[in-house]
């Protein structure tokens, strides 16, 4: 009897399984897609989403050289003050409407109002006007060396081109729809926040013809459907990959790398040429005690990078001690200001803090509970601070709440904070202009709000420098100043290779920091 029912059910289920013939990429990212506006937030996951759905005018290639992406041809005036862009043919939004200059201009303006790199660029821009439907002009106040690099940026937030009406949304508000012109279409009706986001192949997408390299070159949608599945537990995600339940796992925990390396069908892949992640301890410059530079510098005595890296990564093969702010192994690595780092000495730290006026007040640290690198790093810092005898007020919360709370400028007692820890992508941190966390633009800067005009000046100078030697010199100066001001304390850098089922998928485009999924094909 029971068997008969089961047989009946099986027959009923058959047509469904036949439907499942379409090629589906099941990928687990480091986070869950909750916000669908890549401009509104710097969250990496929102930008992975954005990179699938939206296209960009330029795309930096693996060597961080900008290449035209949506732009067909462009001209730079000899005085390097006027840029004329012409969109290539065949660009259409997912709702069928063509991409026009107006869309591009509105999008750049919104991005330029919100994103750190964009703000810097827009600081130079005096006019941004449409010439015709496909052509528009950008006029600068003075020459700026990073125009195309900024537009082709491969880290958060990308300069995504939206429909004009979406781009006119207040940058402080999220766009409600996620309609772009990129290689994949966001299936909003199938989106289950907290569980999965679904993308369907954009059949009308016209890719470029060049070979893909990071954000540059052809973006060929390789599968019919991409499912970004959210598995919060890294072990579960790893097991799911080993078991073949998913195809792609963006950030396996380094502890699992030996297991993954052994697993049949699974391959590991380095995401880019330099280490993908740098750890950062961010202090709040607005409130005591860290409004005093002496107090900030005292914290250097509490950071032994090796301790942090061991706790996060474990295997020394995958991490690197790097006392500088600009990525070690990157083009602008230097030793400027690294002398601020001292031997681990909690007593000394407390003494210096006291000298800076600290008197045992609680120091509020935002401790995320659900992040596989930030959580352990925070624990290590708390331990060190406690050892020093600092009164630590630990606020445990999930990462999303940290992201919300770190934006609060109020004093810690009124919902603000003193310390939080975050990480940033290696490409971004390698370049002083793209590296927004190194900035010190006061209120306009990133959370923590370091404030030092000198630093900002140096960053501008870097952007306008004409030679590589000059850039390197400015970079060193900048790092020294930033280390002195303690814009943040780095605690090392590491790389997490991505893991995927080599027996099932192919065509992964490596890109440090922001996973690129469009090229992946399924066997």
């Amino acid at each position, binding site marked *: 009897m029971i068997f008969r029912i089961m047989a009946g059910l099986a027959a009923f289920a058959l047509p469904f399984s036949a439907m499942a013939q379409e090629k589906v990429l099941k990928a687990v990212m480091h986070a869950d897609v909750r916000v669908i506006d890549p401009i509104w937030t710097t969250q990496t996951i929102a930008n992975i989403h954005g990179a699938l759905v939206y296209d960009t005018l330029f795309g930096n290639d693996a060597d961080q050289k900008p290449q035209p992406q949506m732009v067909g041809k462009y001209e730079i005036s000899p005085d390097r003050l006027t840029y004329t862009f012409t969109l290539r043919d065949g660009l259409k939004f997912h709702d069928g409407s063509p991409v026009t200059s107006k869309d591009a201009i509105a999008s750049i303006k919104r991005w330029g109002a919100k994103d750190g790199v964009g703000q810097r660029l827009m600081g130079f821009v005096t006019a941004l006007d449409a010439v015709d439907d496909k052509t528009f002009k950008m006029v600068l106040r003075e020459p700026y060396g990073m125009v195309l690099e900024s537009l082709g940026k491969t880290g958060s937030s990308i300069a995504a081109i939206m429909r004009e009406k979406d781009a006119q949304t207040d940058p402080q508000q999220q766009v409600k729809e996620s309609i772009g012109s990129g290689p994949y279409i966001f299936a909003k009706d199938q989106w289950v926040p907290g569980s999965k986001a679904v993308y369907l192949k954009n059949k009308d997408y016209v890719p470029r013809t060049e070979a893909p390299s990071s954000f540059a070159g052809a973006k060929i949608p390789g599968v019919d459907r991409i499912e970004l599945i959210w598995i919060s537990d890294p072990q579960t995600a*790893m097991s799911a990959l080993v078991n073949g339940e998913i195809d792609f796992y963006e950030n396996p925990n380094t*502890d699992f790398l030996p297991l993954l390396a052994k697993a049949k069908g699974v391959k590991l892949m380095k995401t880019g040429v330099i280490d993908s992640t740098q750890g950062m301890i961010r202090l709040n410059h607005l409130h005591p005690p860290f409004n005093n530079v002496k107090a900030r510098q005292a914290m250097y005595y509490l950071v032994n990078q*090796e301790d*942090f890296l*061991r706790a996060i990564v474990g295997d020394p093969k995958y991490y690197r001690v790097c006392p500088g702010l600009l990525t070690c192994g990157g083009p602008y690595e230097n030793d400027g200001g690294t002398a601020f780092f001292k031997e681990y000495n909690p007593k000394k730290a407390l003494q210096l803090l006291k000298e800076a006026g600290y008197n045992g007040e609680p120091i509020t640290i935002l401790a995320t509970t659900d992040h596989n690198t930030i959580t*352990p790093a925070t624990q290590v810092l708390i331990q060190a601070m406690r050892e020093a005898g600092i009164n630590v007020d630990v606020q445990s919360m999930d990462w999303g709440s940290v992201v919300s709370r770190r934006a609060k400028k109020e004093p810690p007692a009124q919902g603000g904070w003193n310390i939080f820890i975050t990480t940033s992508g290696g490409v971004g941190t390698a370049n002083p202009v793209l590296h927004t966390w190194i900035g010190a633009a006061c209120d306009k800067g990133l959370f923590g709000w370091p404030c030092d005009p000198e630093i900002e000046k140096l960053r501008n100078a870097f952007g306008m420098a004409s030679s590589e030697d000059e850039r390197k010199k400015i970079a060193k100066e900048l790092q020294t100043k930033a280390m002195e001001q303690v814009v943040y304390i780095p605690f090392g850098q590491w790389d997490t290779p991505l893991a995927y089922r080599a027996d099932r998928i192919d065509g992964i485009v490596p890109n440090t920091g922001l996973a690129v999924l469009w090229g992946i094909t399924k066997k």
Partner: protein
Amino acid sequence: MAVITDDLAPSPGRRFSLATAIRRNPTIAFGGVLLALLIVMAVFAPLFATHDPFKLSPVNRLRPPSERWWFGSDQFGRDVFSRTIYGARVSLIVGLSVAIISSVLGLALGLACGYFKRIDSIVMRIMDGLMAIPSILLAIALITLARPGLGIVIVAIIVPEVPRVVRVVRAVVLSIRGQPYIESAIAGGTKNLKLLLRHVLPNTLAPLIVQSTYVCASGMLIEASLSFLGAGVPLEVPSWGNIISQGKTFFQIAPWTILIPGAFLAVTVLAVNLLGDGLRDRLDPRLARRL
């Protein structure tokens, strides 16, 4: 003159002997001894611990059990054995305080409900409402209202447990009220307060004690579950739920981080449950039906 009747009825020589007591109530003895050991371990945790349970030692992370780390180390290089021993404190504090507080509250409300109709109809509606909300859900909903901490966790576990105690006490009070010995006491001129204190209250204690052991076990499990979900005691407190929650990521390469606190939790709950089962069989066989 009436004759003095013979010896008293069956009361075969019951001199107390430990062996007999254990033979008759093996579950009480087993559960009780186990629990006592755990309590000793928790109270004297600093004496038993081999390491500082809070001390991070990233160099020694995820070490398997060995002479130095009896139960291995976790991902921060902390000693799992020492953390587990300290974790017993959290579980026992939560379990015991939940059991005691909800029993006291439940007893007061249950007596009131069983005795006064007006209070009964109001309080029981509220209890029914609270009972309609699954306990973990109710607990985590309450926890969202305040900053995480041991106190709020205990309160959040008590709130869903109290209605269960109230129901038991109320049912017992109602059934006691119908007992002939209550009528007998009333007929003998016993007044309300004395009736409550001398005849009703002592007879509710046995089922209440039994119930409170189950509440205690359930409290410990809920605490561990809440911590496991990240909604329990603050992360740096080494509760068993937190140890497991932090260790779950490394289960495949360091199973000791989950299995050892998990086993301690299971054994503690087991001990409390066995004690409860034994007490139930001993004190109140009628309760056996209701589990």
